[in-house]
């Protein structure tokens, strides 16, 4: 039976905070920015209550640096931001990729580029999450369309950060961040929580911080524990020491990409609605998915064979899964609030890219079921 005290009426940003607490967050560093600020405000209250640490840093870059430092002492860490701040964090985010430091970054998207449309919704940072930092790398990005799922993917984000020793981006948007709806906090144990994998190498025996085990994982050792080692953003050998030997460089880069891309099936999360017999498939994510689901439900009632594929993992992009799900569809409509960032991925993934269409909205307003319906009717040859 559900404990009534576990039922809340909250903003999406608070659902993210609750998920972080459930996952065992120890440390948060941040800088105020709309529309993510509530995440840091709530953690400023919540973290010290459980003996955790919160710090408001002097800028976005410093916030990213601080969480990386705190992760290395053995803590679960997070920062939160929005577009302009996410741009500033990119160099340090790449550092976390290279040095393989578990950390979670929430980006509550607003309209961009530049200062853009701070209090309005957008999904324009999807590609920035993938390629914002320089150089080849892999990244994990999760998103959700309702607060129960925001909670869940936040726990997943912390779990994946530990499992793959990588930064994980929680990509929310202004509507999800600020909208209020019901959240039921799961009981402890309902959602698995992954703890840090620490080395079993004993004191006095050489510990190689960057020598993967057979399963590809790299057990860590906390700063302050018995093993002293080097962490750097330069290409490095198994000791963590700078090394530009071509073999070392190529092996490390392949490892950084493969550890994520080869596990796309593990990392990929999605939800599907009425896909079994769907002739028309709406692919969406975040707040746009709410309108997609609403429209599909409405059209189903009128006998149209339409379904929704809601992506919760945007990166690594689940191309194989998308291809399979769309194989029988007459048309695929990607519903998103940008100029077409996920639609490009879908076109690359499916067998027949000419049947993939974009229903978008880029004016700071939430895309509506009617916006999607207009495109659907055109595809159906029914006119608008």
């Amino acid at each position, binding site marked *: 039976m559900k404990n009534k005290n576990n039922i809340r009426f909250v903003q999406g940003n608070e659902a993210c905070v609750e998920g972080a607490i459930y996952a065992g967050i120890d440390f948060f560093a941040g800088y105020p920015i709309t529309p993510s600020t509530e995440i840091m405000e709530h953690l400023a209250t919540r973290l010290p209550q459980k003996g955790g640490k919160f710090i408001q840093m002097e800028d976005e*870059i410093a916030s990213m640096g601080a969480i990386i430092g705190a992760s290395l002492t053995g803590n679960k860490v997070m920062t939160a931001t929005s577009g302009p701040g996410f741009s500033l964090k990119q160099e340090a985010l790449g550092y976390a990729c290279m040095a393989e430091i578990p950390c979670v970054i929430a980006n509550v998207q607003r309209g961009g580029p530049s200062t853009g449309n701070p209090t309005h919704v957008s999904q324009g940072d999807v590609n920035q999450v993938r390629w914002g930092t320089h150089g080849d790398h892999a990244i994990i990005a999760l998103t959700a369309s309702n607060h129960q799922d925001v909670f869940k993917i936040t726990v997943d984000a912390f779990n994946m950060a530990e499992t793959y020793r990588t930064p994980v981006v929680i990509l929310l948007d202004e509507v999800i961040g600020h909208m209020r709806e019901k959240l039921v906090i799961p009981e402890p144990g309902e959602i698995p929580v992954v703890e840090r994998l620490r080395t079993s190498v004993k004191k006095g025996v050489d510990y190689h911080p960057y020598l993967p085990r057979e399963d590809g994982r790299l057990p860590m050792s906390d700063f302050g524990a018995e093993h002293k080692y080097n*962490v750097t953003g330069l290409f490095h050998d198994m000791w963590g020491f700078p090394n530009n030997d071509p073999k070392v460089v190529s092996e490390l880069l392949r490892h950084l990409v493969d550890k994520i891309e080869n596990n796309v099936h593990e990392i990929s999360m999605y939800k599907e609605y009425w896909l079994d017999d769907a002739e028309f498939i709406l692919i969406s994510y975040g707040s746009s998915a709410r309108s997609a689901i609403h429209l599909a439900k409405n059209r189903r009632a009128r006998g149209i064979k339409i379904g929704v594929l809601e992506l919760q993992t945007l990166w690594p992009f689940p191309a194989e899964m998308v291809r399979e799900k769309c194989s029988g569809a007459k048309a695929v409509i990607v519903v998103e609030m940008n100029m077409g960032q996920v639609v490009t991925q879908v076109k690359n993934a499916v067998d027949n890219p000419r049947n993939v269409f974009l229903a978008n909205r880029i004016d700071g307003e939430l895309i509506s079921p009617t916006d999607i319906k207009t495109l659907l009717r055109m595809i159906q040859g029914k006119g608008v």
Partner: protein
Amino acid sequence: MTKQAFNFKDYIRPRFFPHIWCPGCGHGIVLGSLLRAVHELGLNKNEIVITSGIGCSSRISGYVDFHSLHTIHGRALSFATGVKLSKPSLKAIVPMGDGDALAIGGNHFIHAARRNIDITAIVMNNRIYGMTGGQFSPLSGSGKKATTAPYSTIDRSFDVVELAKSAGATFVARSTVYHANECKDLIKKGISHKGFSVVEILTQCPTYYGRKNKEGDAIQMMESYKTNTVKIGSKKLEKNPNLIQRGVFVENTDIPEYCEAYDKIIETAMKGKA
């Protein structure tokens, strides 16, 4: 129990030598002073985290046998802030170059000082960007030659000591690599000080700064640290006020240290008083 004699091999990672510094570079003397300071303080190597940014000076972190974190350009203090606040029992030492500390990293420098978080920043001031080949830094001062100032610099320089003081650092000191023992003593004091400590050490870059500005070889540059500097308040200043002063400029133990102050926040929060 007699204290063990200092042996630098106890404190370095021989596997990672030789170091990358040019012949005549002053940074090795800073490294030596730092290791002697750690030895004389009797610190356990496992309780030290050395965090650095990017540049010649920042390579120190890889050579020492402590927990070492070689980060990105200018941001070392922010990473060190995360290390220290998350585990205050660790000693946080941050060796920085002048460009690293006060150009790209200037914001973090003043805010770490303002917070008074217990980190020791060692600013290795050679007045030039060495690793990238001799561009002027915010410490070069006007009228100097650099690859990016072929006609001479027009930028004025910061005074590290004055900047640290006004930003609220609670321990501020300066020395030079000519005065290696003084260096060691000031680093010891900086590490022992509870709060944000800044130790500026003038160190020569004969390869770029010295050559471009006709300041001679490494030995001549080191000798200039002897002749151009004096202890704080020296009578020599009356005749020549332009001499650079060395010693401890600020030692203030009245300001609460940041991590200790946060522990009190935790106490309050746990009692449920928001």
